[in-house]
């Protein structure tokens, strides 16, 4: 809870909603007849409307990327370290849009929303979405806000996949792409972790095949387990070791199965918090979207061919201790971009924080990311708007 807002914060922000009546045809064959997207904006759209930056969120992310909703907020938005006045995405130059993706559980239409056909909650009947569907819906939000072309589309992890999809699906609408801690497709190991998370949720007796809301239950245990598994993959062995080591909660072993090690306590806490704030069906849907993303598959496995339509410069960033989407996954992308003659720069940031590093402050990460965005601002001749 800040007493005063930090000077490099975007300050107090209010989410907005946009409702769409035009049906959205989905990759899975179904159609959403209408839907709502919740989003936030930071900074000011300039008269030329060419300074907009789209933020794409990761698995458990949402529209609240920067600033505070109220002076009582304990923490700012999830990417506050990189969005704000003078930060890597400088809101004195850029107009930033951050939305909650379709299928989410933070206000945009998702499994917890009402299905207009049945007047019940969608629940598990909510269509499985793909990264391409998200990007399609994001483009419609851009239309609504009068943005023809983004100065940059930026995202980490699953967000980075959306950025890639933008460069291929709407090459003329994206001037620059920033792909952080991402991968052009999940590995078998990644899919395996997702499947364990899904099984944890689906085997919770409170899950009721996804109709938990109608049963008045919440599959908390499943969600908690899913999050605990996921969380391990977001951290590095080193960062966990540095944070917890083998520290015990009490000063002795109890020869039982209650929480003994600090790391157990931490994971349980993370899981508990998540299980009361996130929707199980959304979690299933988001992990499926991750699993399905594989643009090269449509081109016989040739990623360079898949990226052929892209026109914009890319910045690709990975983190040395990220074992979820390890640096070689980013290199795969970079090599394909080079093979396809695209403008690309790549930096591998030495951080001990594993996959989570993309969210955390880091001097070199900031220098690289901020340097790229300054070049974007210079090329577009963006003035300070505030």
């Amino acid at each position, binding site marked *: 809870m800040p007493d005063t807002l930090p000077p490099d914060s975007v300050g107090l922000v209010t989410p907005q909603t946009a409702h769409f009546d035009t049906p959205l045809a989905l990759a899975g064959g179904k159609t959403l007849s209408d839907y709502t997207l919740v989003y936030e904006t930071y900074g000011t759209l300039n008269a030329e409307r060419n300074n907009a930056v789209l933020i794409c969120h990761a698995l458990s992310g949402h529209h609240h990327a920067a600033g505070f909703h109220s002076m009582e907020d304990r923490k700012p938005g999830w990417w506050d370290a990189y969005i704000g006045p003078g930060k890597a995405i400088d809101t004195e130059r850029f107009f930033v849009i951050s939305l909650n993706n379709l299928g989410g559980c933070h206000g945009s239409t998702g499994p917890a929303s009402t299905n207009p056909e049945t007047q019940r909650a969608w629940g598990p009947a909510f269509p499985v979405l793909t990264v391409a569907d998200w990007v399609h819906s994001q483009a419609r939000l851009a239309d609504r806000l009068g943005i023809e072309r983004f100065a940059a589309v930026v995202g980490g992890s699953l967000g980075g996949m959306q950025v890639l999809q933008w460069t291929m699906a709407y090459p003329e609408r994206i001037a620059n792409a920033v792909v952080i801690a991402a991968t052009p497709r999940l590995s078998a190991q990644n899919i395996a972790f997702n499947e364990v998370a899904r099984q944890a949720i689906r085997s919770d007796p409170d899950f009721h095949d996804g109709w938990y809301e109608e049963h008045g239950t919440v599959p908390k245990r499943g969600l908690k387990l899913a999050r605990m598994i996921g969380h391990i993959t977001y951290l590095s062995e080193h960062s966990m070791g540095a944070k917890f080591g083998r520290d015990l909660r009490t000063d002795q072993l109890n020869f039982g199965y209650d929480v003994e090690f600090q790391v157990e306590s931490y994971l349980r806490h993370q899981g508990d918090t998540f299980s009361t704030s996130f929707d199980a069906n959304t979690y299933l849907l988001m992990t499926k979207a991750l699993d399905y993303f594989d643009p090269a598959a449509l081109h016989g496995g040739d990623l360079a061919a898949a990226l052929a339509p892209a026109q914009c410069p890319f*910045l690709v960033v990975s983190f040395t201790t990220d074992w979820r989407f390890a640096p070689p996954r980013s290199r795969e992308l970079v090599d394909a971009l*080079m*093979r396809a*003659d695209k*403008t690309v*720069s790549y930096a591998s940031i030495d951080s001990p924080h594993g996959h989570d590093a993309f969210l955390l402050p880091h001097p*070199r990460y900031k220098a*690289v990311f901020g*340097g790229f965005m300054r*070049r974007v601002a210079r090329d577009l001749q963006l003035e300070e708007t505030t």
Partner: protein
Amino acid sequence: MRADLKLIHDWVPQGARVLDLGCGDGELLAALARDKQVVGYGLEIDPDGITACIERGVSVIEQDIDDGLSNVDDDAYDLVIMTQALQALQRPDRTLDEMLRVGRECIIAFPNFAYWRHRLYLGIQGRMPVSKSLPHAWYDTPNIHLSTFRDFGQLCRDKGLTIVDQRVGNGDHEPHWSSRLWPNLCGETAIFRVTRASR
């Protein structure tokens, strides 16, 4: 611009596809893109160099040349440039092979260890040379494979490579009668332009 870069700048053909190994802050690639519509990438491992490249809009890839270029296809580039990096490589000979695999032609610039000032340092003072082109002390130098103008020419001949051009220069790469007559003695830096052996 640094003198060796100026000379290389003149050698690069219009619109060439270039890979610059150890591109530093991207000065050469930026100039080549501006003046000669060159497209290409720099490889670099120095964080400050990488940031400088990104900020000036030069495509730079964080990659250690010592790890090889296995991610680059055969004949992917018209020209592969490497300035002031040869002497810091684990195996300069293997890197040279890799450069000529991925590019038709190479330009390589490096400090000439046989430069007379270096000889004086070693021969008279009996100490490892320290100069403008070799600014480090022996214990902290990244330069682990120092060679001479003549050495490198010999390596090219041993490999059956074609030397298209070879020059030496003082720090400013100005042509001088003495370095033309005795390049191995009077040249502070050496620059070679090499192509693959004719098959």
